């Protein structure tokens, strides 16, 4: 009995320490982000982002869009990309063996013609079926290839791309008109050291999209989407901004990130076997820079916005999160040599261990906490100090961190226009503790099991198209 008691107390302490530490880390990231966002706002005051149009020499960008079965939103997405405000860029859509009408829709909308382009196959990819150029949009190139994964499609795009910077954009995403101008700025200000930059991803659910642009921002009616809005605010404005300020960025979202092509090519491009190719590339780029002892920076910019559609069904959400978590585990296992390795600077000593301890192992500890609490209730042996402390560090502290993320949104872009939106987001911050967080913890813990079992599926989600996103199902 006493052994069980010791075990129970030990587990309880471990779980409490975990929740206390993770929320404290996120609290500190939020504080760092707060300072970063205020500074960024002051630094870009009176900056004319349009002045790049008057510059005689600009850094051209290849926007690469891998697309698999994206017939619903591909035309809106490509139109939004072609209407970006940037002096010199090309849009390369890689149709990764879609089984729906993605290519047909593109051909019809942009008058695509088969081209005889020849290119240097610097990165190995699965065979291409054809390269198409648009007769009405000279900036558009469409590659049709045999189905691989997103990484393979990105590599095909990289082979065709002509410019020194490339921007990875998801086909189900919409970039704001000046997003590229803003995200490229670090590459102009510090061209020697900047190797990557990412902007913020926001959810288009609940927004009105017309002509490939978000014309009205709103909160969706669907609570799963509402929880995700808050999650994205916490992750991008709180987590990534804070991590970037500590020079510990390990992820630049694959939905919208700009990279130096020479560095990405030197790393061998995207790793085809990777599940989360975005994180994998960023870690490899950092590894390379550390090994070559070259200074580098990966920046997070809080205002270039990429809108994307979030899943509104639990099934789709669990598939997406399972893939993300399997990808995280895969990347951390693959680069385990960097863990606690001083050779890789802050990335090795802080960022990788943080992700390993809190993001990778976190779901198990969370699930254990909930299970322990439930077992106490079932056995009628509720440990009230533990229960109250658990509630305090897991739920209350978490809600406080969510409130901080709302504050960061208010300070940065202030995109949700109605005061009512603040109430809804705060309510989401409280309500997510009732079921959503626990559900995701279980999904992520199970993803680890899937990873060990070698499950490698992508986890596609049902697309509703931008115009329909946010409407009641």
């Amino acid at each position, binding site marked *: 009995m006493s052994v069980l008691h010791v075990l129970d107390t030990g587990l309880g302490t471990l779980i409490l320490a975990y929740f206390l530490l993770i929320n404290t880390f996120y609290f500190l990231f939020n504080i760092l982000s707060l300072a970063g966002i205020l500074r960024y706002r002051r*630094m870009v005051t009176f900056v004319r982002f349009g002045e790049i149009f008057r510059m005689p020499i600009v850094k051209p960008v290849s926007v690469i869009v891998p697309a698999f079965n994206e017939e619903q939103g591909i035309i809106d997405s490509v139109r939004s990309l072609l209407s970006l405000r940037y002096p010199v860029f090309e849009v390369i859509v890689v149709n990764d063996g879609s089984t729906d009408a993605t290519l047909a829709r593109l051909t019809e909308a942009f008058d695509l013609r088969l081209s005889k*382009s*020849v290119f240097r196959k610097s990165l190995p990819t699965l065979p291409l079926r054809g390269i198409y150029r648009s*007769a009405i949009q000279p900036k558009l190139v469409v590659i049709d290839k045999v189905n691989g994964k997103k990484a393979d499609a990105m590599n095909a795009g990289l082979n065709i791309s002509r410019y020194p910077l490339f921007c990875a954009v998801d086909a189900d995403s919409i970039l704001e008109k000046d997003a590229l101008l803003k995200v490229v700025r670090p590459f102009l200000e510090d061209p020697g050291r900047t190797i990557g930059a990412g902007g913020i991803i926001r959810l288009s659910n609940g927004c009105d999209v017309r002509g490939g642009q978000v014309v009205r921002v709103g909160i969706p009616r669907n609570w799963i989407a509402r929880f995700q809005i808050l999650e994205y605010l916490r992750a991008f404005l709180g987590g990534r901004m804070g991590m970037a300020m500590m020079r510990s960025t390990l992820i630049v979202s694959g939905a919208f990130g700009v990279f130096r092509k020479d560095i990405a090519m030197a790393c061998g491009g995207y790793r085809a076997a990777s599940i989360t190719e975005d994180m994998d590339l960023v870690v490899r780029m950092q590894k390379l820079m550390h090994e070559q002892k070259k200074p580098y920076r990966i920046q997070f910019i809080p205002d270039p916005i990429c809108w994307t559609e979030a899943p509104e069904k639990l099934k789709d959400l669990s598939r997406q999160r399972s893939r993300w978590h399997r990808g995280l585990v895969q990347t951390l296992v693959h680069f385990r040599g960097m863990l606690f390795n001083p050779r890789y600077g802050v990335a090795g000593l802080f960022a990788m261990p943080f992700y390993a301890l809190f993001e990778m192992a976190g779901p198990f500890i969370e699930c254990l906490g909930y299970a322990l609490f439930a077992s106490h209730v079932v056995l009628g042996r509720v440990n009230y*100090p533990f229960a*109250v402390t658990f509630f305090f560090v897991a739920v209350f502290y978490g809600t*406080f961190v969510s409130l901080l993320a709302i504050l960061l949104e208010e300070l940065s872009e202030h995109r949700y226009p109605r005061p009512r939106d*603040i109430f809804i987001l705060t309510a989401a911050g409280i309500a997510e503790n009732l079921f959503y967080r626990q559900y995701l913890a279980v999904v992520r813990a199970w993803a680890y099991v899937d990873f060990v079992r070698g499950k490698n599926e992508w986890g596609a989600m049902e697309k509703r198209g931008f115009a329909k996103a946010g409407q009641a199902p």
Partner: protein
Amino acid sequence: MLSIVVLYSFVYLFLMSFSLFLFIFVRRLIIQSRERKDRRIYADMEADLLEVLTAANGRREAFAFARRYGSSPRVLKRLLVAYREALAGRSLEPLKTIFETTIRARCLRELASPWLATRLQNVRLFVDFSRPEEAVHLVKLLHDKPVVRLAALNALTGIASRETLAHIFDLFEQDPAPNLYAYSNIFFTLGPRIEPFVRESLTRTLPVEKTGLLVEIAGRLLLRGLYPDVLRFAQHPEKELRIRAARALGRLLVPGSVKTLTALAADASWEVQAQAIRSLGSLEDWRTIPVLVKALFSPHWHVRYNAGYGLAAFGLVGILQLQEVSRQKEDRYAADMAAMVLDTVILAGGTA
């Protein structure tokens, strides 16, 4: 004991969360009300500014405008920054007058602020509103942090005199970590008047990347007076400088450079070859056609690519050469490249 600590923490965190929520909410209401007020002032200012800009005596009207709205510097700055985007040349004069009367003194004071962001904001206001006599304040910032330094350089380019140009080139030569991209844009903005400074800098021993940039600028600004200086670098042992020289020669379009470029097309480095072929193509000299056709059979993709587009630039004659290469069977790579260039030329023609 633990329960008391937890209880206190709980109450403390609850109060903190509630205060944070109130802060966010009240702040939003205050900001919305301020934005409404600012929008109203902005609309009034805009209407009056349009009258100033179209008035017969713009200067007097500008003074009157400055007196009227000098007490709202935040909105005034926004208006001036928005309008300087749309105006150019003499029409900027009323804006400059308003700026000098209302904001300039404060800006000059804030150029010495210990806060980087404050210095940066203020130096940016000088980019379009500065006058030559302000150069002295901006030159002081040339030894500030890189981001402020570049903003000051940008502001100086708008009021470039011989002295400020000398400052800019001194800074360029001494800059231990130059942002070459920014410098190239600044030099390009300054235009042909920098020729004597470029010539002088090219005689000095500078790091390869700085010399390379100067050679590049000579080509981009078509400074044909620097042709002999550029020619010197075509035989330089540094590959990077030979590449830059080949590129500059392709832009300067001096007929005498065919010989040098033909020699560079046979350089040991394929990067130099590729650039020399590209430059030979841009010369559009009939004598270079055999060299370009030969380069289409190079083992290097970039050389073939530049040769293909170089030939296409000759028009019909080049296209006939490309057709011939595309039909031959001995070298598939040359044939594919020729076919691609022909395809692109035809597609581009169709788009036009």
